[in-house]
């Protein structure tokens, strides 16, 4: 027995508890469930509700103590069933019910309510409370998504604790005192937290309800399966609940390595998009009159296959391109890679929309897990994305690590992020000059200012990076500048600190799976370069592309020049997502045939000649890969609308129409093939993924993977690059930063009515000190002009934006920032003036 093991007697049975373990936890681990309301294993105990009181004896006689607050000590005796304990617990329950409205028949929580359940198990039969109950105005909205019924509230402090302790958004609070206490917001200041839905999930009664779910179903009508959220690349585990073949709710599932039970509101509520009436349920084909008209699958596939065949005949494989794939399951991604690269011979495949990272950086650097980043004593170097906006639950994990485990954050970002308040050091470098700053940071810099950052600040940050393990979170802070400097930053860090690990901060759902499975130019499935895996995959697929293809920017440029004959959009919406709107428009217009596989008629899909409806989330099974390289299972729960098909089936059908054999028949069989041919996935068998250890997901490559003979190593080298200094800023201009926010005009958000309006229209943010110089005032509509074009948006001050910088959100209603960006320029400079 280890030194940390303690002997505790619970209800006469001796058990072993861990040092620091709470009585309520130790009891539960040994099969003794102590009732509770306020205790939540992922939050600090407060011991308020008093439901968990049991008799605890530490040598001075038994005393009633809250088991959620008391740590086990050696020799402790606990009685959870004594008369005194029972009487006290029944008393607490009676007190809780005294003012409770007992409106279970009309309450959303009825059927899954801890208060209701515990009343059945531990409560008194009949109410002795004949006095008048406490009255509050019935449900009041505390935010756009959450309603609060204060009469049902039992003041357990779970939601308020969550808001403060976990989310860091203490916008709901206990107000007033004693029996008058209520949870509420400050007037006119709603609980606008990205994480508000968690409070609904953890409310032990029906006090908090979510507008998107309210009155939709009774818990006993719900069926559920466990799955993985694909709203971003964190890959939180979820429970998908449905009734009558309709998805009605997602709940967070608690897994240690990833989400601890939490979800962000986007992930929780974008199930509305699955049910959207806007979903495509049948194929569309552009007729002679140039209108998209519904068509039968056979006709649509024939049109598509015909276009592909003609295109190949006209321009060879190089004239075919596939953009997108981040929405796909691993299995579908593999199917499309195999179709395009193996069967059709084109390497013009890119799952990223020019807003991501060079794939070598994602796949080629030593990778970190979320747990690595959050390990006590470490330092996280943030180079890029704002995790709060892009990877919300990763933000929660990092926040916890900073506040509780002494993890330090060093941030390099041109504008403040959601992590800035948590960062030990936050360096505001000039946009486009990150690489210079990183070089200084690892080079014992003795000089002065670099990239706009003071030399002393650089030294302070460098000192923090000196000791302890480093995790680098790498991503794009701004799509208004080239990604090339990030590559330099990454390699510089890798060379200076070979032990540093990298976490890739790409946001889109299964972008990591798509890259792992070869959906980028020059790559083959399983972290293999085209040139390295040529023989291995030729043996397996019959052929591979002769040369490295184009990325999205390259494809769009080629298409604009008339060099792309057939362009396939796999859930891609370049008009919305590609940073350079002008190029995207020209590219789509320039391709002879555009085939779109999608769930919605997005702006880009409207340009297509053939539209093939794809099955969506909860409608397909398979696997997905998160930003750690963690593969976890997606479970089908409902059927797709109309005749929409899984993406891999569409690939197989197209192959069929082209008289080719993709050789893929089922999700399971595809996974088997992936495991066998894609080196990074070796050993990650279906059994492993669906077995007991699979719930946490499996990070690939497995450390103990047995390589198949002759298979290439899963290794992608990162090419070095030289630092290019961006041109200097002229006196009249500002340098543009365009960042993503959680609620943008992305497909899922736009098609989820509850979320669609949360982002609001785009506003330009400037340093307060720049207003006078530019002759504009807060709230003004201003004209922002770049070499590419102009937009008109309202402007507001933001001290988180340094002087000389103009910040816009990407892909929001109102002004379209992508209209200002030239994808081939290193940075984007703009002028801001009153129109």
């Amino acid at each position, binding site marked *: 027995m280890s030194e940390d093991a303690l002997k505790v007697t619970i209800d006469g049975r001796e058990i072993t508890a861990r040092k620091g373990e709470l009585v309520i936890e130790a009891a539960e681990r040994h099969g003794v469930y102590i009732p509770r309301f306020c205790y939540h294993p992922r939050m600090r105990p407060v011991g308020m509700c*008093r439901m968990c009181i049991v008799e605890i004896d530490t040598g001075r006689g038994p*005393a009633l103590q809250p088991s959620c607050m008391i740590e086990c000590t050696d020799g402790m005796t606990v009685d959870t069933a004594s008369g005194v304990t029972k*009487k006290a617990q029944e008393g*607490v329950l*009676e*007190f809780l019910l*005294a003012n409770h409205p007992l409106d279970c028949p009309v309450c959303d929580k009825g059927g899954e309510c801890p208060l209701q359940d515990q009343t059945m198990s531990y409560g008194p039969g009949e109410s002795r409370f004949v*006095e008048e109950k406490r009255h509050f105005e019935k449900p009041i909205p505390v935010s756009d998504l959450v309603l609060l019924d204060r009469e049902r509230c039992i003041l357990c402090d779970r939601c308020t604790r969550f808001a403060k302790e976990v989310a860091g958004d203490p916008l709901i609070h206990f107000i007033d005192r*004693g*029996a008058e206490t209520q949870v509420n917001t400050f007037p006119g200041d709603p609980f606008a937290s990205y994480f508000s839905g968690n409070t609904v999930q953890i409310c032990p009664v029906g006090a908090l309800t979510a507008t998107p779910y309210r009155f939709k179903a009774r818990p006993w009508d719900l069926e559920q399966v466990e799955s993985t959220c694909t709203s971003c690349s964190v890959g939180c585990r979820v429970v998908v609940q449905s009734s009558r073949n309709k998805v009605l709710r997602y709940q967070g599932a608690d897994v240690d390595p990833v989400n601890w039970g939490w979800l962000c509101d986007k992930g929780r509520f974008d199930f509305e998009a699955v049910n959207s009436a806007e979903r495509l349920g049948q194929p569309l084909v552009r007729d002679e009159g140039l209108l998209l008209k519904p068509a039968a699958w056979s006709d649509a596939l024939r049109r598509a296959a015909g276009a592909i065949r003609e295109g190949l005949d006209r321009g060879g494989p190089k004239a075919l391109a596939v953009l997108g794939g981040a929405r796909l399951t691993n299995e579908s991604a593999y199917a499309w890679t195999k179709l395009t690269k193996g069967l059709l011979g084109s390497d013009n495949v890119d799952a990223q929309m020019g807003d991501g990272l060079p794939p070598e950086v994602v796949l080629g650097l030593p990778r970190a897990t979320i747990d690595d980043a959050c390990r006590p004593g470490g330092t996280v170097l943030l180079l890029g994305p704002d995790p709060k906006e892009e990877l919300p639950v990763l933000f929660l994990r990092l926040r916890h690590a900073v506040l509780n485990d002494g993890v330090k954050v060093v941030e390099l970002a041109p504008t403040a992020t959601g992590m800035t308040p948590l960062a030990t050091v936050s360096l505001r470098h000039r946009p486009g000059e990150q690489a210079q700053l990183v070089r200084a940071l690892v080079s014992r810099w003795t000089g002065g200012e670099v990239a706009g950052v003071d030399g002393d600040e650089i030294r302070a940050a460098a000192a923090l990076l000196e000791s302890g393990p480093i995790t680098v979170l790498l991503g794009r802070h701004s799509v208004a500048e080239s990604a090339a400097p990030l590559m330099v930053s990454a390699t510089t860090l890798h060379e200076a600190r070979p032990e540093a690990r990298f976490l890739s901060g790409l946001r889109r759902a299964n972008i990591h799976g798509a890259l792992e499975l070869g959906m980028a130019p020059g790559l083959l499935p399983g972290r293999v370069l085209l040139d390295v895996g040529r023989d291995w995959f030729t043996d397996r697929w019959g052929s591979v592309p002769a040369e490295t293809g184009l990325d999205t920017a390259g494809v769009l440029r080629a298409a604009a020049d008339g060099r792309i004959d057939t362009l396939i959009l796999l859930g891609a919406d370049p008009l919305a997502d590609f940073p350079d709107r002008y190029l995207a428009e020209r590219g789509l217009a320039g391709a002879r045939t555009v085939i779109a596989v999608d769930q919605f008629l997005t702006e880009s899909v409207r340009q297509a000649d053939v539209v093939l409806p794809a099955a969506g989330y909860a409608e397909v099974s398979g696997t997905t890969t998160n930003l750690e390289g963690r593969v976890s299972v997606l479970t089908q729960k409902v059927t797709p609308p109309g005749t929409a098909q899984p993406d891999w089936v569409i690939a197989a059908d197209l192959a069929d129409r082209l008289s080719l054999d993709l050789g893929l028949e089922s999700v399971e069989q595809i996974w088997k093939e992936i495991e066998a041919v894609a080196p990074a996935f070796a050993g990650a068998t279906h059994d492993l993924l669906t077995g007991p250890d699979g719930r946490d997901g499996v990070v690939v490559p497995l450390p103990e993977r047995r390589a198949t003979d002759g298979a290439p190593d899963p290794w992608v080298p990162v090419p070095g690059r030289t630092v290019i200094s961006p041109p200097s800023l002229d006196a009249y201009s500002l340098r543009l930063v365009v960042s993503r926010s959680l609620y943008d005009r992305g497909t899922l958000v736009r098609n989820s009515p509850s979320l669609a309006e949360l982002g609001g229209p785009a506003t330009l943010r400037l340093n307060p000190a720049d207003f006078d110089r530019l002759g504009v005032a807060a709230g003004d509509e201003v004209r922002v002009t770049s070499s590419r074009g102009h937009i008109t948006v309202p402007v507001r001050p933001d001290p988180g934006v340094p002087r000389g910088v103009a910040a816009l959100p990407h892909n929001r209603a109102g002004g379209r920032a992508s209209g200002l960006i030239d994808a081939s320029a290193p940075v984007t400079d703009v002028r801001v003036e009153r129109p």
Partner: protein
Amino acid sequence: MSDIPRIVSSRWDLDDGYTLKRYRETGGYEALRTAVTTMTPDEVAEQVKAASLLGRGGAGFPAGVKWGFCPPGVFPRYLVVNGDESEPGTYKDRILMERDPHQLIEGVLIACYAIGASQAFLYVRGEMALAQERIAQALNDAYEAGLIGKRIFGTDFSVDVVLHWGAGAYIVGEETALIESLEGNRGMPRLKPPYFPAAKGLYMQPTVVNNVETLSNLPWIVANGGAAFAALGAERSLGTRLFAVSGHVNNPGVFEVEFGKTTFRDLLYSPEYGNGIRADRKLKAFIPGGASAPWFYEEHLSLPLEAGAVGAAGSMLGSGAIVVMDETTDAVKAAWRVVRFFARESCGKCTPCREGTSWLEKILRRILDGRGRPSDVDKLLDICDNISPQIAWPPKQTTICPLGPSAVSPIASAIMRFRDEFYAYCGGGEVTVPVSGKAYLSTPSAPDAVGASS
């Protein structure tokens, strides 16, 4: 009794006892000078230990022992002065703050020196504007005179004393709630363990919380020695102590008496003190230690004002507040009024206190309104039992702090002794139910467990 020194109330009769000038003329700040220039911190603490000075805030824990609980080597330490006096019947800290603020400040400085506190916060009840003014003036004068702040008496002893005041919440008198309040939060108590202030107090640092009266004793103890203090009183209750005698006595007032030896009878009937029940009426009951204390009756008059003896008899001296009720008192109404206090003052953290005290209050109100039922009486007791199991003394609790269980005292007291008055309100004549087997006042008690808070 006139040979008993007035340890804390010596300047009460002076019109200008609160000024620095008069304070220094009457020996003020000499004890501090002695302590910081001639004694080590340990020696000061030793004197306080020798004095066996019990805390005057209510829990009665020996100050010297409490100081020793600060874990060695953990700094900074803080001293928090509890001037939140709000227990019904209690009136003595306010007088000390209004009439002799320098004595308190000197005590605070002596304590800071002894325990090694780097900063002190003097938390005065919000409603006491005059006390705030007197202390603010006293602090300003003492700062100017070099008695507080940097390098006191030219030594390396430096400490700031910050005046802070509350905003109206009885529960903030509870030491952990006081700390929460001082951190800018709602005054909701913390659970002890693990949050004993001496270990994890203000900002989770070692913190000593002491009552105003407790600290006001320190200048005398340092000047005269702990032994001189301990020569007064009896048993565990040594020195002198302030008692506020209010209610139906001829001469209500705050009296400094020899602790441990004076009896309740002395205090209620001696011409020097209470001078008897008004209009020569009969005593019905009296509360011996603030609203939280179970009531005493005629038969307890001979008990000495000694913590152990009072505890053994089933109540407590608490905050030194004696409320006298004569035979005309309506026991139901008196109980209701005290319960209403606890219901209004519950912080709301613990279910049994939040819901239980307001439920009790509603039932009592209904009984007083003539809408009670005889069965309500036992229901009251059973609800009490769910807040304070077995209605035992010292109280057990299903709550975090003793406030909830305190509401049980008046009800259990009134029902045990005056059950028929309840039935009279309820329109039922049957006074047949025996005292439901809960021997409230006869449970043997451990004397020092009364609301133990340190």
